[in-house]
């Protein structure tokens, strides 16, 4: 079973990103992945990337810059708009890693 390190980013670094990382974990686990999820706010991303391995970023707030890691906008999980597309993209991306 492949383990994915997912970083979930939101403005507070806790509330919305926890909602998203729970959901993303649920989706990926149902696809047979093991998930290590971490949350932070946009200002915490750089430090986090130096201290640990991150395979995938999901974000609800805009990031400070582009990272060399696959990044998926997770707003559809909150709004419902484009939710299926998000799920499909997430699974496709996870399988490609």
């Amino acid at each position, binding site marked *: 079973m492949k383990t994915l390190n997912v970083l979930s980013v*939101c*403005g*507070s670094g*806790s*509330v*919305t990103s*926890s*909602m*998203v990382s*729970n*959901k993303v974990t649920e989706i990926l686990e149902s696809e047979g992945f093991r998930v290590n999820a971490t949350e932070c*706010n*946009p200002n915490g991303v750089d430090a986090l990337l130096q201290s640990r391995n991150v395979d995938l970023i999901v974000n*609800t*707030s*805009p990031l400070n810059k582009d990272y060399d890691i696959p990044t998926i*906008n997770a*707003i559809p*999980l*909150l*709004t*419902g*708009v484009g*939710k299926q597309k998000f799920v499909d993209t997430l699974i496709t991306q996870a399988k490609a890693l």
Partner: protein
Amino acid sequence: MMMNKTIPIKKIVITGENYPSQTELFKKVTNKLLDENLVTDDYFIEITKREATYPTGLLTEFGEIAIPHTDSKYVKEPFLVLVKTENSVEFKNMVNIEEPVYTQLIIFIGFVDNTKQPIILQSLMNFLSDKERMLYLQEKDGVSELKGLLDNIC
């Protein structure tokens, strides 16, 4: 889901008022939260700052809503405050700080330790994309009906 019932979350519903600005709304809600001893004295300034930097307006499939929240260190006891306003209040879109979102539905989320409450967060997230409950939220104006809806979330 069993955990839901064991976590006491204070629920407050405020309806039927006009707010000339987001600041006035935040003042009103902060005063209520201070009265109930649910937040620290810094809450107003922190929620204002957070919303300006990382806005929480959302354009959901079933209408506009905002979910203001700030760091748990300014929260003493967990709460959900649902405000249904008479006029639309301007927020900015979570995905784009330049884009206004006008809404009459605002849910203030206050959690003490977020890591212990994943089920509630999950439940809140499911609620935002749940057609039936989002439409119910838009249609109903009664405090007890809206309180019932919050109790249904967590």
